[in-house]
């Protein structure tokens, strides 16, 4: 199959040989989730450690990365250091499954700059951890606390909207209903347009209903039920296209993006923000992930964000 931008490969049990031998593979160390690290990355380290960049530490400003076996500290706002993670190879695979948003988003930005071919890998979990005593419509127990609304490293937009009265708030909704509300509160007063995006179809057939149910209060409060747009939960390209549609429908609108739904959707939103830096602003709430928040390993998606240098 010819490589092209927008292509998605779906693999049930990815093997090391599924990934180009010439490519650099960027992935996280083993985390508390089963899906955070694919077994095939261990095979890659065994076979060709020089082609691996293993992220062993993630903090607010920096990551610790073993680049070709040698560990170094990389600032998430230092384009040149981030570029070293990609080891000057033309093809790159970036597995975001075990990485926090504030880590993978700057890597995607730099990866798009320095790689001729950039693939992003995402592994679905099998199950989310149910809450033993839910105090709201949020039925899963995914975060221990919310860090607070702040941008992602390297994505600050200090200019803001030229005209706030035309702005639009676009939350990509997930299972934690309070998160959309918390981000929305940082926007007080709310922009006149609120257009939520829900992952349809979801990873599982019932998940879109769960997402609506968990966000019922948010949708009620901002009278946003009839504004909801849908994009496949596992597809960054659809999320990107939906954002383009919103831009077309609201020309000139400054877009506040809250990538708090699935990671593939967040990837689409971040990618969109990278390509539209002047009129988008990412707002993220930096949740602290609960250990073992998911279990099991579902299908692996490999998205081609850049091919043939474009």
């Amino acid at each position, binding site marked *: 199959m010819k490589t092209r931008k927008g292509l998605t490969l779906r693999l049930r049990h990815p093997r090391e040989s599924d990934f180009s031998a010439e490519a650099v593979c960027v992935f996280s160390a083993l985390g508390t989730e089963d899906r955070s690290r694919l077994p095939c990355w261990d095979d890659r380290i065994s076979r060709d450690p020089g082609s691996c960049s293993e992220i062993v530490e993630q903090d*607010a*400003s*920096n990551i610790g990365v073993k680049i070709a076996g040698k560990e170094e500290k990389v*600032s*998430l*706002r*230092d*384009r*040149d*250091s981030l570029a070293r993670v990609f080891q000057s190879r033309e093809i790159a695979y970036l597995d975001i499954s075990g990485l926090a948003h504030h880590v993978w988003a700057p890597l995607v930005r730099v990866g798009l700059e320095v790689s001729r071919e950039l693939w992003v890998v995402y592994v679905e979990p099998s199950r989310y951890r149910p809450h*033993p*005593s*839910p*105090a*709201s419509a*949020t039925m899963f127990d995914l*975060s221990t*606390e*919310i*860090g*607070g*609304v*702040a*941008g992602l*490293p*390297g*994505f*600050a*937009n*200090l*200019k*803001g909207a030229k005209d706030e*009265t035309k702005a639009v708030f676009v939350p990509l909704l997930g299972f934690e*209903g*309070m*998160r959309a*509300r*918390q981000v*929305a*509160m*940082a926007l*007080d*007063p*709310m922009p*006149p347009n609120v257009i939520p995006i829900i992952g349809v179809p979801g990873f599982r057939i019932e998940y879109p209903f769960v997402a609506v149910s968990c966000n019922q*209060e948010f949708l*009620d*409060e901002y009278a946003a039920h009839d504004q909801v747009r849908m994009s496949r939960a596992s597809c960054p390209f659809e999320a990107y296209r939906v954002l383009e549609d919103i831009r077309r429908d609201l020309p000139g609108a400054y877009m506040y993006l809250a990538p708090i739904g699935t990671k593939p959707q967040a990837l689409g939103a971040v990618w969109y923000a990278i390509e539209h830096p002047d009129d988008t*602003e990412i*707002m993220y709430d930096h949740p602290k992930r609960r250990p073992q928040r998911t279990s099991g390993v579902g299908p692996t998606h490999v998205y081609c964000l850049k091919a043939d240098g474009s």
Partner: protein
Amino acid sequence: MNTAQSLSSFFSDYRSEWEHKQFSSLFVEPTYYAKLLKNRPSLLIGGRGTGKTTALKALRFDALPDRAEGRPGATDCLGIYLRINKNRVSAFQGDELPQSEWGKAFAHYFNLLACGELCRLASWLAAEKRHSSKVLDLGLVVTSLGIQTAAPASPDTLLQALKDAVARLELFVNNPRSVERPAFSVAEAPLKHFAAALADSGLLGSATIFCCLDEYENLTVEQQSIINTYLKHSEPPLTYKIGLRRNGLKTRSTIDDNDLIATPDDYDEIDISSESFDDFARNVAALRLGRARQSGINVSDDPEAFLPELPFKEEAVKLGAAKRADQVRHDLAKHADLANWIAAKSDAELAFIKFWQAGHGGTLEELARDWQANENEWHTRLGNYGVSSLFWLSKGRKGARIRKYYSGLRTFLSLASGNIRYFLELIDVSIGVALDSSAPVPAGAEIVIAPEAQTEAAKSVAKDRLAQIEALGRHGGELRRFALAIGKVFFEFARDPAKAPETNCFVLSGEPDQRERVEGVLSDGVANQVFEVTPATKLTSPSEMRAEEYRLHPIYCPFFEFSHRRKRRATFKAESLLLVLSNPRRAIAALSGKPMSSPPTQTELAKDNADSDEESESDELPAQLAMFADFFYGGSDED
């Protein structure tokens, strides 16, 4: 637009207060406004919804037409307004630069934003054709900002140059190690130069520039130190008005660590919660009703007439006092000598005997004779316990839509408890409920909001506000769990006739480390108006420590159906409250001093569906609380 929508439009601006087209015609000066207008720095402290943003925005140069009309007092100040955007100011930190360098970058950013607002003020003053014999010379401002602009700089050209400078700064902030560092302006200097230029030009006249900063709590400690320096060194014709939440001032430091800001030396502190809210809110309601009346809506401009109260005896009857009174009459019928006394008593009073018996024992005959012999004592008792008895009346009234009324202007003021946004929302939702299209107002009739509609609205607002808690601050999830558990406990207390009446406050006991942890969450709750705190009064025993007394914000009371009046307090162990986070069922049992309740079984649910007077746990839980059954009954029986 129908009547409901038209009337509602006068109260609906709590949703987007500033964008409201009727802002200037509906603005009411809060009671502290004169203090805010003083020509010296002020900190305006209040929770979300207390009106501080409206007060600060009302100071903006173009906010009120009154300014242009030269209304006395209004032209003495010309405000600029900046909201601290947390998403943006959070970019000025990280390991890439030393903290001091981030501080300089932030001060430069603040200078650029504030000068942008001053440019708009200058343009507005020029457009207002203020008499000025001199030219506005912005040369020093441009130099101090380290930017380039066409000479001579005008407000318009400077504004464009400022936007370019923000864009350059943005590049640097996003990539501080690779992008060339722009020249940073010095803290304070550009604003002082700008204010001086405006004064020298004559455009300012005798007015003082108020630099109004909203949501100051969004700044980091280091960033607040920088702006504190601006405040400390401010001098005419420029001063600062800072809006922030309680506990939002993270430091009193300035850039020079030894030089702290202090009140009253450096600024006035205006705590909205200690200002007279009731008069202000009453005026707000009266003005808006008056405007509605002027627009042709048949409504009284007296808020008390618009939102009638339900007297105690009428409420008791609506809540089922007649049934209880009939039981008393039936049981006492054989005592002929009590017949006249019984005949003179209202249903509410006879039901009260039943309430007293349930809580304190005795036979009905004994109690009736005691009342007959001690009218004054029972009159006092009715005063103390009457409201409490209303909550008890609802026991066993399965399926009743209203189990306690919340109506009347005084009740709404009390539920809002200093929060003007809550107050407007209560009225707005009441209008929506009362004027629902299914029950149109008869032609020509004056619109009055019935107690039923007010109560439904109060419950609806409480439910919505409860839903919001989870999104408030970093402790939102914990706060929601605390609120649900404490609300459930006070709900149970309210229905227990043996409990002290209207127990709805609490103090903490327990180990210092556990108390500290709970107080951390509660403090966040106070800042976000989920809880209220006051120094404890009326110590109940010599061993009781003088501690803070907390209560759930009264806006939640209609949801949990307990009294909104601050009355008596319970003591909660911090350990039990912390248990709410992991095992709410055990925690609620420990807090209420009752055995652990079980979730309703299928048999109980089936019984509930049948018409039975027998009470069960599921029977007691009103529909709105039953929604949280997974929480109330969540957790295991084990420790």
